[in-house]
């Protein structure tokens, strides 16, 4: 007898357990099946900085949340409808996010005296009634897995380790996920392991499905229909992969070789890992001895004619500052990608934050303006990378591309573009003298103020440039006071002039609101969700989200001034809001969160409602 199927519009599932329990891998497999099934989805992996924090402790809890739906969604969800926990610590760490009435599935085998104590439980919550009000399903997953694998030929340790695949099986049954996809993806994921271990994991997964099917534990199972996304071909993609692919696409469009230098740092390393796989695209990746060297190599490669990129996180940005100044001074096109994480110092390496905006804006000595482009969703990292490259190449300037841990590790369905949809990036190298039989490396294009890019190897255009102030035009060393002021203003004007070349900021204001909410970067999802909730209550709110943070779009000031109230939610202590106040003298209000976690839709909603009623 099978349980009845209940249809849902959207579900939030969180897998939680010890860092060694394979929760990220479990979540990834679930997401792959969910994506292929055609739901819209959004994910939030959350894991400790330690590779293996002490087993069973709260510090060692790793979790993976996925929100999936039959319609378009924006966030990984505020609170899980289903919490799957592989141990007591996973329960303890996550329970505060789970609302009464939600489902909790727990691996009861791990709720031993020792583990309960480690997690700080005085008695067993699966038995003491403290979880009353939740739909609690204790399942002895470890022993069921071991039992299911007793003839599989793998040892007890490997069998026990497969319990996460059992949990995955239970969840796949509960939500009618396509099981073939998952079996295939388990095979791919564990490809390097011995065949019997792969088979055991698949067997554990199937045992989980059968468990759901045959026991009458669950009152019902659930279905979430495919979402009605914009028609086209989709794939699921994480922010870091999308960013890497965006760089490859930008190099393709610009017909330039891609050079990428970096030094490993969470959460940026995956961009390096991803790009290192595409040598057949002519992509050169260079793991340098430190971030300074990476930035230096990128300047050298830009000087010699590559689309040149370095990617890092906050601590690495600090180290690159001086080199960015050199690139500003030499007016060379390159990208500095900052996948932001919690700071200061080492801070929260695996958690998200937006606290580097003012660093990107002002974090160099001297007058050293740099354009800033920000990605707003994981898939949007692709488009943001292309836009940042377009600006850099066209204006011969280093450009900051801002991502963060939430975007980097999160994933969502991505409408795969066709090559014809990609923007045109036209780059031309100087090949001839430009001034009375001489070559002047700082003779600017009148429209863009960009200087010519003459790369080594070009006969007759030998020139020498560096970080010393250059005479306008000739580029020769100049300490002349008036020239320095002129060059300072020219560099500023060049960056400011990019405003003419970017679209106006779009304002989403269907009902003529009083309150404008302004965001940048990864708050796009949570703000959008919050706005939607507010409107669902019949209240009015307008929303503008910035892709370009420096320079601002030309209409931005006008937009800001046309609202009575302006709110700027940021995962920092108020960066954009300071820039807005300084630039436009608008009394914009900050709304800050610095917990290493994205805003919840409900938090944004509450804040908006408060301001609307104010």
């Amino acid at each position, binding site marked *: 007898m099978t349980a009845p199927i209940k249809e849902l519009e959207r579900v939030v599932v969180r897998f939680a357990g010890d860092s060694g329990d394979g929760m990220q891998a479990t979540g990834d497999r679930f997401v792959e099946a969910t994506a*292929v099934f055609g739901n819209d989805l959004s994910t939030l992996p959350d894991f400790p900085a330690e590779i293996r924090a002490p087993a069973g402790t709260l510090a060692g809890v790793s979790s993976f949340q996925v929100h999936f739906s039959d319609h*378009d*969604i924006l966030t990984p969800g505020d609170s899980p409808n289903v919490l799957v926990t592989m141990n007591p610590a996973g329960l303890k760490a996550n329970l505060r996010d789970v609302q009464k009435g939600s489902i909790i599935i727990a691996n009861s085998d791990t709720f031993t005296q020792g583990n309960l104590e480690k997690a700080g439980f005085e008695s067993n919550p699966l038995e003491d009634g403290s979880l009353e009000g939740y739909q609690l399903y204790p399942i002895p997953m470890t022993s069921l897995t071991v039992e299911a694998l007793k003839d599989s030929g793998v040892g007890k340790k490997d069998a026990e380790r497969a319990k996460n695949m059992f949990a995955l099986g239970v969840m796949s049954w509960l939500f009618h996920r396509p099981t073939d996809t998952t079996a295939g993806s388990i095979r791919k994921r564990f490809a390097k392991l011995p065949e019997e271990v792969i088979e055991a994991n698949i067997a554990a997964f199937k045992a989980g499905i059968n468990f759901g099917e045959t026991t009458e534990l669950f009152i019902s199972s659930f279905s979430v229909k495919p979402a*009605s*996304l*914009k*028609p*086209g071909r989709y*794939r699921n993609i994480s922010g870091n992969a999308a960013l890497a*692919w965006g760089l*490859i696409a930008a190099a393709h469009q*610009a*017909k330039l*070789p891609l*050079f990428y*230098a970096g030094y490993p740092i969470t959460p940026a390393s995956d961009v390096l890992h991803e790009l290192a796989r*595409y*040598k*057949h*695209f*002519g992509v*050169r990746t*260079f793991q340098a001895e430190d971030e300074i*060297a*990476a930035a*230096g*190599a*990128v*300047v*050298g*490669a*830009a*000087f*010699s004619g*590559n689309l*040149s990129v370095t990617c890092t996180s906050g601590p690495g940005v600090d180290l690159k500052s001086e*080199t960015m100044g050199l690139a500003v001074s030499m007016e060379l096109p390159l990208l500095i990608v900052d996948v932001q994480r919690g700071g200061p110092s080492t801070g929260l390496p695996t958690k998200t934050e937006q606290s580097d905006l003012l660093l990107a804006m002002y974090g160099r000595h001297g007058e050293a303006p740099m354009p800033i482009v920000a990605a707003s*969703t994981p898939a949007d990292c692709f488009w943001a990378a292309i836009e940042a490259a377009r600006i850099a190449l066209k204006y011969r300037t280093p450009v900051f591309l801002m991502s963060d841990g939430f975007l980097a590790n999160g994933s969502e369905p991505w409408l*795969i573009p066709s090559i014809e949809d990609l923007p045109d990036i*036209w*780059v*031309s*190298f100087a*090949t*001839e003298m430009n*001034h009375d039989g001489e070559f002047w490396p700082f*003779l600017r*294009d009148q429209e*863009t103020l960009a200087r010519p890019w003459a790369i*080594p*190897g*070009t*006969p*007759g255009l*030998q020139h020498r*440039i560096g*970080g010393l102030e250059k005479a306008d035009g000739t580029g020769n060393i100049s300490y002349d006071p008036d020239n320095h002021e002129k060059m300072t203003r020219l560099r500023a004007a060049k960056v400011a002039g990019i405003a003419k070349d970017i679209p106006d900021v779009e304002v*989403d204001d269907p009902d003529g609101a009083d309150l404008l909410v302004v965001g940048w970067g990864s708050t796009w999802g949570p703000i*959008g969700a919050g706005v*939607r909730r507010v409107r669902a209550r019949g209240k009015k709110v307008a929303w503008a989200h910035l892709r370009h943070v420096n320079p601002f779009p030309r209409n931005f000031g006008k937009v800001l001034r046309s609202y009575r109230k302006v709110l700027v939610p940021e995962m920092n202590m108020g960066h954009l809001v300071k820039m807005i106040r300084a630039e436009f003298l608008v009394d914009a209000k900050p709304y800050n969160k610095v917990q290493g976690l994205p805003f919840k839709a409900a938090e944004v909603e509450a804040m908006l409602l408060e301001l609307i009623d104010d």
Partner: protein
Amino acid sequence: MTESNGNKSEGNGHIEDAAAGTVAVQLTRKDFASDQEIRWCPGCGDYAVLAAVQGLMPELGVPREKIVFVSGIGCSSRFPYYMNTYGLHGIHGRAPALASGIALTRPDLQVWVVTGDGDALSIGGNHFIHTIRRNVNLKILLFNNEVYGLTKGQYSPTSRQGMITKSTPMGSLDRSFNPISLALGSEATFVARTLDVDRKHISEVLRAAASHKGSAMIEIYQNCNVFNDGAFDILTSKGGRAENQIRLVHGEKVIFGENKDKGIVFENGEAKIASISEVGEDRIAVHDAHREDPSWAFALSRLSQNPTGPTPMGVFRQVEAATYDDQMNQQLAAAQTKLGQGDLASLLNSGDTWEAPERRGSDAPVYAGPERRGRQPGE
């Protein structure tokens, strides 16, 4: 001006095209001098090195546009401005990193690094050792004047212990680096030492360096006549030259001294100065710069820390090893052979993909947001 932005009809975006059209012509020393006014102090050793390099260049037969000089910051690092080649005057200590970006992406170029003892060994020590370790195809000219020239005379990592400077009125406490030992410890494939005033010797050493594939580190003793005058007098003075310069010539016995009466013996892993009359010429070691094992070269480097006595000059070590840039390009070629030339459309469509059908009718939420996301907000 022919350079253009955003105009398809002009220019081009191909490195190969822009860098094409090189014609070999016989050049002279003058052709390698730029039109920039030279701003070193009168009498500075840097002039002599510049003259030697400009003099050597025509002989190497590399067109000017295929040569790049990259430097850090310091008096010596102004060098690129005076060469009629491509030049990048970088930031303090980072020249090897900047140059690596050029060498790694442009195997068609000959890349020279000019750096000082402070630039290379203090602020840039990390890049110096790692670039050498990787064997990136660069010629590194380390102008060692045992002082910070540009910042007016503070002691440097190669200064002798006890040096009195403005920052060390009671004498510096630092023990000094031996750049040759350091380079050898960094797995250098080419290591040499020469001297500013000896035009012939510089040219010989640089010629050898130019033909070396990989990182070539050349320490050049350079007199800073303003802040550390006479640091190398012991090697350049009339009698000192023969008595204290131990000329290393591959395949020849290491013999020196006004009367050719001294030589180097190699015993128990140590190089020692011996009187030929005492030990006999047979025991004098033959210099083998091509030895795979660096211990001979290292032992030679230990004969003098700063030049206070007999000091080996010339090529200590010159061995063949794959260069980083060649290997990087080989990996690219191997990947292309295996996987074919990368195709963007197939990359974007790779992995698990699915087709979203035509949108449902009226219940689809409508939002005027960026279409590129292919999705619309809602929850």
